[in-house]
């Protein structure tokens, strides 16, 4: 199977869906002539033309809402928000409109819309350009939110999102764009929205992650195997709907859980996962569910401070040790 980057997987999928369905149209800032701020849409405007790959002014509320309205009339817009930080000025159109139109009007209108955007921080992008807001959207019934961690998942979930008749928030990560993985080239596969995947099986502890943190969790799991610790990694893939069953079943097996997330600690995705675990597997737990998350500061620019504020592999390893040391099984 060919190995391609996460970026290439997205670019291929967008091109294939543009070719497959004439109702699909891409919209966003600098996605055409400029080829995309992170080159996800590279080459697509020259291939499909300015009517299908549409450069918009800097007006997120305007063009996201425009895409919602176009979707209501049968188009299938795929909107790029340059980074998730800029989505806040469009949140009214997503939360108050896109998410509610199908339900609130008694099923008379559909909003087949995808909003793609990278979340999380990389380098020293500082306070306003390093945030994770996927939990804000995962909170909202009526939306679907997916956050793939590999090129294979990115392709399967983006295809599913574009072909879905509901608004889907598609969470990417700047730090994942250059990562590589195997992706079949001729197979028209989709992945189900609303299902998690056990990315790695293990018996001692469950690590729940999504997007880039799944990659971190997989590396940590591999390293800890050398120490005789068997880590199971559950990749959420989908934040709404949330596959509670897969999470709970994993914890019933391992009796311990750590969540790693790039967002802030309080009220983050990890809080929801921890609640899910205590509701579904309370009697199975040998240790409290722990969360590894961002330190709660506006992310500082200075490299040393920035590094200290972001969750990483060492934080996860420390949490796994704490969980294992705190329970009976590790002491036997």
């Amino acid at each position, binding site marked *: 199977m060919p190995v391609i980057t996460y970026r290439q997987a997205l670019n291929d999928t967008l091109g294939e869906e543009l070719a497959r369905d004439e109702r699909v149209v891409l919209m966003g800032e600098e996605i055409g002539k400029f080829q995309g701020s992170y080159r996800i849409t590279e080459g697509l405007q020259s291939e499909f033309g300015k009517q299908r790959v549409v450069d918009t002014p800097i007006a997120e509320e305007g063009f996201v809402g425009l895409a919602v309205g176009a979707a209501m009339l049968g188009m299938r817009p795929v909107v790029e928000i340059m980074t998730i930080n800029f989505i806040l000025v469009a949140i009214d159109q997503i939360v*108050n409109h896109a998410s509610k139109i199908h339900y609130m009007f008694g099923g008379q209108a559909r909003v087949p819309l995808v909003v793609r955007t990278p979340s999380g921080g990389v380098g020293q992008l500082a306070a306003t350009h390093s945030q994770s807001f996927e939990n804000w959207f995962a909170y909202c019934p009526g939306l679907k939110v997916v956050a793939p961690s590999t090129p294979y998942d990115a392709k399967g979930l983006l295809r599913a999102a574009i072909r879905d008749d509901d608004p889907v928030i598609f969470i990417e990560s700047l730090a994942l764009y250059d990562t590589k993985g195997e992706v079949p080239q001729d197979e028209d596969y989709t992945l189900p929205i609303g299902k998690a995947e056990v990315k790695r099986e293990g018996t001692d502890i469950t690590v729940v992650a999504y997007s880039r943190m799944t990659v971190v969790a997989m590396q940590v799991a591999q390293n800890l195997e050398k120490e005789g610790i068997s880590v199971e990694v559950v990749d959420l893939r989908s934040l709404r709907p949330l596959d509670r069953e897969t999470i709970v079943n994993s914890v019933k097996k391992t009796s311990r859980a750590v969540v790693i997330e790039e967002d802030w600690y309080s009220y983050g995705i990890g809080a929801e996962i921890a609640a899910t675990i205590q509701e579904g597997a309370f009697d199975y737990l040998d240790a409290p569910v722990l969360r590894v998350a961002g330190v709660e500061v506006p992310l500082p620019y200075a490299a040393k401070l920035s590094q200290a504020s972001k969750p990483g592999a060492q934080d996860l390893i420390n949490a796994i040790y704490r969980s294992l040391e705190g329970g009976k099984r590790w002491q036997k």
Partner: protein
Amino acid sequence: MAKQAKQPVDGAEEVRRDLSGEDPEQLKHYYYQMLLLRRFEERAGEMYTKAKIGGYCHLNLGEEATIVGLMAALTADDYIFTNYREHGYIIARGIEPGPVMAELFGKETGVSRGRGGSMHLFDAGTHFMGGYAIVGGQLPLATGAAYALKQQNRPGVVVCQMGDATTNIGAWHESLNLAALWKLPVIYLIVNNGYGMGTTVEEGAAEPDLYKRGAAFRMHGERVDGRDVLAIRDAARRLRERAENEKQPAILEAVSFRFRGHSVIDADRYRDPEEVKQGRAQDPVSMFARQLSDAKIADDAWLKETATRVEREVQEAIDFADKSPDPKIEDLFDYMYATPVPNTPGREEALAIARQAQGGR
């Protein structure tokens, strides 16, 4: 001295037009529609005080001519997006008063199956694309619908209705810029009733001549007397042709007077009683009745008969709403998602909620 009620463009208190070139039956139909909206809204206000209607309820009283004139100009191809003060629009577009009243009553037979309420009326069949309750929210949506019409080479235009104060919100500026930049077939209809809740146009807008606010986008704008059904109809027709054939968006500002408070529960303490008295004296419905009488198009017997007919139809709407069933709790999750996916709540979860609602565990 009492503040003057907002004057229409020509400053005349009474709408007077030459009706000689008009089809008398058409004019009578306009009057019937205006009276229907008037009585529907008056009775809706009454039903609200009887707690048949919950939540917020905003009435179109005083705006009947604007609504009927607009709808007279539109074709079946056209799409309409409105704000939350929209009962009259969906009725004038052709929906029976019964399902509209049923929606206000929160019934399964309502136009949005009781899921939307007064502020969220919808009818796919007539392209009535929804009442939206976040000020400005409908503007990008309507602009996008116009974009879709153009992309798909379909006939028709989009009308986006809003209140005067909406011209101060960001979505207005972003939408107008996109519509002008991409030459989209959309008409932005501003219903200027002088007030955004209790704030006057002059208190909220640095350019209170709202139709001029498209200048920043080189967008054509016009102001018409919103109490004059024919003025609205003719202006809307003209702008509609232009939008459809030349792909030129436009602003249409219709000046009228809000007969009551912002919503049914608003006691309207901030307006000078004299201003309200004057505004109501220039009633578009009774002015149009006088015009029809003076032109010998309608006599007293016809006007009386029409009033009786309207009274009966509104009463039938209320009876229909009253007798209609409530939506079932077991249907709570219907319409959550158009494409079903795993791990979304469905019938089973709704039944559990229904059992709890009945006192079970």
